[in-house]
C-alpha cells in the first residue's frame, strides 16, 4: 500500500443527502482496508445551507480535513456549490458533478441571479469534469431519489477500489427495501464514461 492519501470533497446543499453519501464512501474505504477520516459541519447547515464534507483515505490519515488545493475528486451535488469550493481541488483534479441548480434565498426572492454557465465555468477550470444528469438517470433506475447513488457510481469508477467493497457498503448503509433500485442506480453511474 502506498503512503499516498486520497482526498474527496463532497459539496452541495443541506438536505441533499450528502452526509449519507460520505458515510458510504468512508465505509467502502474502511472495508477495503484503509485508514479513513471524514469531517463535516452539521447544525446550521441542515436548514438548506451550504454543506461540505471531507473524506480522506490511505495508509495513515492525520487531519480529517482535505488540505486546501489537495482534493483529488470534487463530488458535487449542485453546480454553484461545486464552483464555490473548487479551491479545495488540486490542479488537474477530477470533478464529478450533478447537473442541478438549486436557487439560494437571495435568488429565490429575486435580489440576485443564479450565476450563469456554472457547468461551463467548472469545465474550463477543470477539464477532467464529468457532468451527470443525476435526476434523469435516477428516474431511469426506477426512483428519482437515487440521484446520489448514480453520482456515487460515477465517483466509484474514478477510484481504485474493488467493486465488491462498494456493494458491501451500500448493502450495509441503504435500507433493505430501497437496496435493489440503489444498486441499479449505482451501476448506471458506474457505467458513465
Amino acid at each position: 500500500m502506498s503512503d499516498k492519501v486520497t482526498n474527496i470533497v463532497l459539496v452541495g446543499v443541506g438536505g441533499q443527502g450528502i452526509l449519507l453519501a460520505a458515510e458510504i464512501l468512508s465505509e467502502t474505504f474502511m472495508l477495503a482496508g484503509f485508514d479513513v477520516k471524514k469531517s463535516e459541519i452539521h447544525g446550521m447547515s441542515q436548514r438548506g445551507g451550504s454543506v461540505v464534507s471531507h473524506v480522506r483515505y490511505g495508509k495513515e490519515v492525520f487531519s480529517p480535513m482535505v488540505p486546501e488545493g489537495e482534493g483529488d475528486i470534487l463530488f458535487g451535488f449542485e453546480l454553484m456549490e461545486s464552483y464555490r469550493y473548487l479551491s479545495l481541488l488540486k490542479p488537474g483534479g477530477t470533478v464529478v458533478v450533478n447537473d442541478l441548480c438549486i436557487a439560494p434565498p437571495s435568488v429565490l426572492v429575486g435580489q440576485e441571479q443564479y450565476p450563469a454557465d456554472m457547468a461551463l465555468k467548472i469545465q474550463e477550470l477543470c477539464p477532467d469534469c464529468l457532468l451527470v444528469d443525476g435526476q434523469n438517470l435516477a428516474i431511469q433506475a426506477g426512483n428519482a431519489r437515487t440521484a446520489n447513488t448514480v453520482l456515487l457510481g460515477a465517483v466509484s469508477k474514478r477510484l481504485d477500489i474493488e467493486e465488491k467493497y462498494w456493494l458491501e457498503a451500500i448493502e450495509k448503509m441503504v435500507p433493505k427495501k430501497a437496496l435493489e433500485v440503489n444498486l441499479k442506480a449505482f451501476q448506471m453511474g458506474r457505467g458513465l464514461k
Partner: protein
Amino acid sequence: MKEILSGNEAIARGAYEAGVKVACAYPGTPSTEILENTIRYREIDSSWATNEKVALEVGIGASFVGARSLVTMKHVGVNVAADPLFTLSYTGVNGGLVLVCADDPELHSSQNEQDSRNYAKFAKVPMLEPADSQECLEFTKLAYEISEKYDTPVLLRTTTRISHSKSVVNMGERTDAVREAKIEKNAAKFVMLPGNARVRHVVVEDRTVQLSKDGCSMPINRVEMRGGKIGVITSGIAYQHVREALPEASVLKLGMVHPLPFDLIREFAGKVEKLYVVEELDPFIEEQVKAIGIPVIGKEIISICGELTPGRVRKAFGLPENAETVAEKLPGRPPNMCPGCPHRGVFYTLNQLKAYVSGDIGCYTLGFMPPLSAMDTCICMGASIGMATGAAKVLSPEERKKVVAVIGDSTFLHTGINGLMDMVYNKGAATVIILDNRITAMTGRQENPGSGHTLMNDPTNAVDFELLCKAIGVKNIRTINPLDLDECKKVISEEMERPETSVIITDKPCVLIKREGIFKAGAPLQVVDESCTGCRACLKIGCPAIEWVPGSGKKGKAHIDPLLCNGCDVCSQLCKFSAIQEAK
C-alpha cells in the same frame, strides 16, 4: 471490533465500556450526538436535562452515591453549569464523573468562540483533549480512572472537528467492574460550608501539583522525535494539522492540557532548536510555557480567531499554499427556516409591526435573516426576557410598546422561566412570545419537558405553558395559531399596547418533528399564472418553496415548488389577487 465512529459516538462508546450508569445533557452543537448514542446502551440511563446546570447536578448526584456518570454540553453550556462545577472541584467525586465540553472554533453553530480550556485552569480540574475518535473512546475511559484515582471531576474537551469527524475505531467491551450505587455519608467531603471547603481547597491545590507531576509519565502526553530543528507542542485536532503540514517536525502531543506536565515540556524544549506551540483559540499552553521561562513562538504566527486547517498551519510556517480561490463573487447560501415553519408568520408580523425584538437561541434566530429581518438582539440561552425587561425599564412609554421578547419552548424551559418570573415580579412591561413548536429543533429535534417524551422515548408529563405562566403571575396570556397572519397581527399588536407583562404562546409544531401524528402537512399550493401580477408580496416571507421567475424587464412571476411546499397557507394570505391556491 472495528467501526467508523464520530468523536461523539466514540465518547458514548467509551462511557459504555467504562461502566457509566447515568448520562445527562442539554443538547448543543457540536455535543448533541453523544447522548443520542448513549441511548443505544440499555445499561446507561440517558436523559435530557432542562439545562446544563441541572445536567451536571444530576451527574454529581449519581457520582456521590457511587455510580459513574457522564455529563455533556457545548462550550457555552459550561457557563451555565459553572456554578456547580467550581465547587464540585472541591468536593471531588465518589463514582467517576466526566464532563464533556464541546468547543466550536470558527463558530460553525455558536454565538461565541470561547476556549473551554480556561475553565479547567479556573476550576482547577484536569482536562483531557482527544485528537481523533479512537482517542475519544480511550480518553473517556481513562478520564474515569483519573477521576476516581485523583478524586476529581475530569473535563474532556472536544472541538467541532473532533466531535463531528469520523475515523476508524477499535472497540472494546464493557468493564465487568461496574460500580454499584449506595448511600455513603461523608459530610466533611460533600457539604461545602466554609469550614469544610477550606480543608478541601488545600486538597485541590495538592491534587493539581500531583497531576502535573504524574502527567510527565502518562502515555497520553507523548514526545515524537523526528529531528531536533523544530519542536511543536500541540494537542487535539491541531496535532493532526501539524502532522499534515509539518511532517518533519518533532512533536510533544499533549493528551492532558491541564494541568500541564511542566517537566516533560522542559525536557522537550531542551531537545529542539526552535520551539512552537500550535493551538486553536487562546494562547493557553503558550502563556504557561512562557511563564516557566521557556521561549516559545505561538500566537505571533497562529491566529487566536477561527479554527485551524492544514493550510492555515502551513501558512503560519511560511510554506506555500496550494489553494487558488474562485475570484467571482457568488450568492451566499445561508440556512433558512423550512417551508411551512410555524415561526415564519410570527416574524413576518413582528417586522410589519416594527417591533424591537429581543431574540434568543434556536431555529427562530434565523428570523434575523432578510427578508423577515425581525430580530434585534441575541446573546445567550434565555436572555431575551431579561433583556426585554431591562430595555422596557428605560424606554419612553411609546417606545416601550415596541419591546417584544421571542423565545422557543426549550429555551424558555432552559433559562427563560426565571426571566419571566422577574418581569412579573418587578412589574416589567413587555410582550413575551413563547414559540412552542413542541421540540428542541435547532440541534436536531430533541425532546424536552414540554414535548411529552423523554430522550429514551418514554411518554412523560408535558409542561403546560399557559398554567405555568399563570402560576408565575402573568395576567394576560393568549394562545395563537402562528400560521394565521390576521390573528398574529391582531393579538400581537393588542398585547404590545398593554402597559404590563403579557405572554403569547404560539401553537404549531415543527415541520420536521419525528414523532408521527404531531405535524400534518397541508396540500401543496400553486401559483395561478393568469392571476399572478408579479407584485412580490409572497416573497416577503422568504419561504424556500417560493421562487421568483424573472420575465422580461422588471416583470416576473412567483412559482411554488410543489415538492417543497408544506401547504402552511401563509403566502396565500399575503396574495391580494387570490393567485395562490391549492394545487390541483
